[in-house]
C-alpha cells in the first residue's frame, strides 16, 4: 500500500496527471530566482527544450546565452560562481556533463563553487532523437566527483522542489532531468529533503504500528521509473509478494540510514534506474551494501548498451525497465535469499 506519510497524489495508478520532470525544473528555477537574486541561468542554445526559457522570460537580465559551447557553459558559470552568483547551467546531459566533464571537475568541483549542472534529456525515454541524445552514463560521471550532490527527481513536482533546494545548498550540484511526460506522483505536501530518501510503498495490510518485518524485497528506485516500481509493487502484492519502494531522489550523498534499514528488513534488494547499471544508483547501493551489509541484489537498468530511436515507453520496455521487468527482478532477488 502507498505509505500514508508520502502524501502521494490520488489516482497515481489509474489516471495520473503527467508532466515532464524538466517542466518541474522550469517552474522551480523561476521560484529559486524569485527567492534569491544571485540565481542566474545559462544555456547552450537549448533554452526551450531545457525549460530555461521560463527563467529567461521572468529575469532576462539574469539569463545568459552562451551559444552551442558546453565547455564555455561550464567555465563561464564557474567564473560567475567564483564571483558570488548561483548559476544553473542547462544543456542535454550527453553534452553537459558529457562533453565538458573535465571543465566541471576542475573549475566547479575542485573550486567547490555552487554551480547547478542540469543534465537534460536523460535515459532512453528521450525517444526519437536516438542514442547520441540519450544520456545513460551521467550519474556515474557525476557521482564520482567529490563535492557534488546528485539529484534525480521522480516527477515534475519533486523536480520543482529539488530545484529550489539545490539553489540553497551552497555547493556543486548535478540535477538529472527527463524529456517525456510521466506521472506526477508527489504533491506539494510530500516530504522532500536533499539526502533523505522517501518510502512510498509499504507492505499491506499493516496490523498496527510501523512494523515492516514482512517485506520480501526492498526496491530502491530513482527518477520517473519510481512509477514503474510502484506499479510492480502493486501487482506483486496481489500475488502475495510484499515489497517496500523507496524513492532515492538523492543519489549522492546516499541516504545510508534508510537504505540499510530497508535492506535489513527485506533481506534482498532491487535497484531501478534509467541509466547504465554500471556506476548509477544500483552501483552506489551495491558499494554501500557490500561494505556494511552484503545483501542479494538485482539491477534494473540499461545493461551495457546504447539506446536507439523509438517511442519512450517502447524503449523503456525494450531495454528492460518496465514494471514487468521489475517484478521479475524482485522474484530473482527472493530466490537468492
Amino acid at each position: 500500500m502507498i505509505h500514508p506519510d508520502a502524501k502521494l497524489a490520488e489516482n497515481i495508478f489509474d489516471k495520473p496527471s503527467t508532466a515532464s520532470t524538466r517542466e518541474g525544473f522550469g517552474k522551480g528555477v523561476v521560484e529559486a530566482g524569485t527567492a534569491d537574486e544571485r540565481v542566474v541561468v545559462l544555456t547552450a542554445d537549448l533554452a526551450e527544450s531545457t525549460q530555461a526559457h521560463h527563467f529567461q522570460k521572468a529575469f532576462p537580465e539574469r539569463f545568459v546565452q552562451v551559444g552551442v559551447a558546453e565547455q564555455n557553459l561550464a567555465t563561464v558559470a564557474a567564473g560567475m560562481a567564483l564571483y558570488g552568483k548561483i548559476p544553473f547551467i542547462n544543456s542535454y546531459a550527453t553534452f553537459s556533463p558529457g562533453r565538458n566533464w573535465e571543465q566541471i571537475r576542475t573549475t566547479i568541483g575542485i573550486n567547490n563553487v555552487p554551480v547547478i549542472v542540469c543534465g537534460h534529456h536523460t535515459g532512453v525515454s528521450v525517444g526519437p532523437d536516438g542514442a547520441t541524445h540519450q544520456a545513460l552514463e551521467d550519474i556515474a560521471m557525476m557521482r564520482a566527483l567529490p563535492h557534488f550532490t546528485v539529484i534525480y527527481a521522480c516527477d515534475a513536482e519533486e523536480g520543482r522542489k529539488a530545484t529550489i533546494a539545490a539553489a540553497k545548498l551552497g555547493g556543486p550540484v548535478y540535477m538529472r532531468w527527463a524529456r517525456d511526460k510521466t506521472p506526477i506522483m508527489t504533491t506539494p505536501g510530500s516530504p522532500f529533503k536533499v539526502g533523505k530518501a522517501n518510502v512510498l510503498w509499504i507492505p499491506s495490510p499493516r496490523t498496527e504500528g510501523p512494523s515492516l518485518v514482512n517485506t520480501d524485497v526492498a526496491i530502491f528506485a530513482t527518477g520517473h521509473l519510481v512509477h514503474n516500481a510502484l506499479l510492480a509493487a502493486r501487482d506483486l502484492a496481489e500475488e502475495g509478494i510484499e515489497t517496500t519502494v523507496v524513492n532515492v531522489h538523492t543519489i549522492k550523498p546516499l541516504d545510508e540510514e534508510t537504505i540499510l534499514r530497508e535492506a535489513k528488513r527485506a533481506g534482498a534488494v532491487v535497484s531501478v534506474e534509467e541509466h547504465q547499471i554500471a556506476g548509477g544508483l544500483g552501483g552506489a547501493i551495491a558499494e554501500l551494501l557490500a561494505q556494511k551489509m552484503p545483501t542479494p541484489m538485482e539491477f534494473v537498468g540499461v545493461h551495457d548498451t546504447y539506446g536507439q530511436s523509438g517511442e519512450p515507453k517502447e524503449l523503456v520496455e525494450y531495454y528492460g525497465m518496465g514494471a514487468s521487468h521489475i517484478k521479475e527482478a524482485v522474484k530473482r532477488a527472493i530466490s537468492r535469499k
Partner: protein
Amino acid sequence: MITDADVKKIEAKALAIRTTIIEMLAAAKSGHTSGPLGMADIFAALYFHVLKHDPKRPDLAERDRLFLSNGHIVPVRYATMAHAGYFPVEECLTLRKFGSRLQGHPEYHMLPGLESTSGPLGSGISEAAGYAYAARMDKKTFRVFCATSDGEHEEGNTWEGIMFAGKYRLANLTAIMDRNNIQIDGDTEDIMPLEPLADKYRAFNWHVIEVDGHNIREFVDACEEAKSIREKPTMILAHTTPGKGVPTIENDYRWHGNPPGKGPTDKIPADKQKEVFLAELEGKTV
C-alpha cells in the same frame, strides 16, 4: 604613467622573482621553467604596479582579479606573490611538496590570493569572462585580468571564451597572452600553427595590443590603454622569450617542462644547472 624609477624598481623585482623561480623549481625537482621565467617581467609589473590589491587582505572586495589560465606557470605567480608580501619567500621552497599550499598547479582553496584552480588548459578566459560578466551585472568597478598561454589557443574552450567575451563586450576584461612560441612538444608553429593571432582576436571583436613582454613600460602602457577601451575586451599579446634571463634556457623548448637539475644536459651537467642558472641571471658565467 610610469616613471623611470618605477621601471627600475620593477626590473629589480623581476630579477628577484627569477632567482626564486630557479631555486623553487630546483628544490621541487619537477615543474616548468621556461614559462615562469618568461613571464617574470609581466608578473612583476602586474603585482608591483598595475593591479589594485593588498597582500595583507587577499580577499579585498575591490581588488583587481587575476586569473591564471595556464596553471603550469604558477611558480612565477607564487614567487611574485611572495615577493609582494602575501607569504614568506622561503615558503616557495615547499612548491609541489606534500602538505604545501603551493600545489604543482594552483588550487583555489589552498592559498589566499588565487582566483581559481587551473592546470587543464583552455578554461581561464571563459572563467575570467564569466567573472567579468557577473561583476558588470553588479556594476563593480574592479578589473578582471587573465594570463593565458599561446599553446592553449589550440584548445576549443579558449575560442569559445573569446567568442563569449566578444559578444558581451566585456570591456572590464583584459587578457594577457604569453606568446613565447613554444609548447611541450616543440615550437607552436610546428605543433599546430596559431598565427595570425592578433587578427584572429580582432575578428572575434577584441581590442589587440602587441607588446614586448620584457619591456615594462610598454606593458604598463598597454594595461592603461585597455582601461580606456570601453566597448570591447582587450588582448595584450605579449611577445616573450621563454626562459628569459637565463641564456642557456632561452628559446629552448626542451626546458618547457623540466626544472633545473633535470633538464637537457648537453650544455650544463644536471648537478651544476641550478648554480649556473643563478649565475647567468646575475650576468655572470661559472
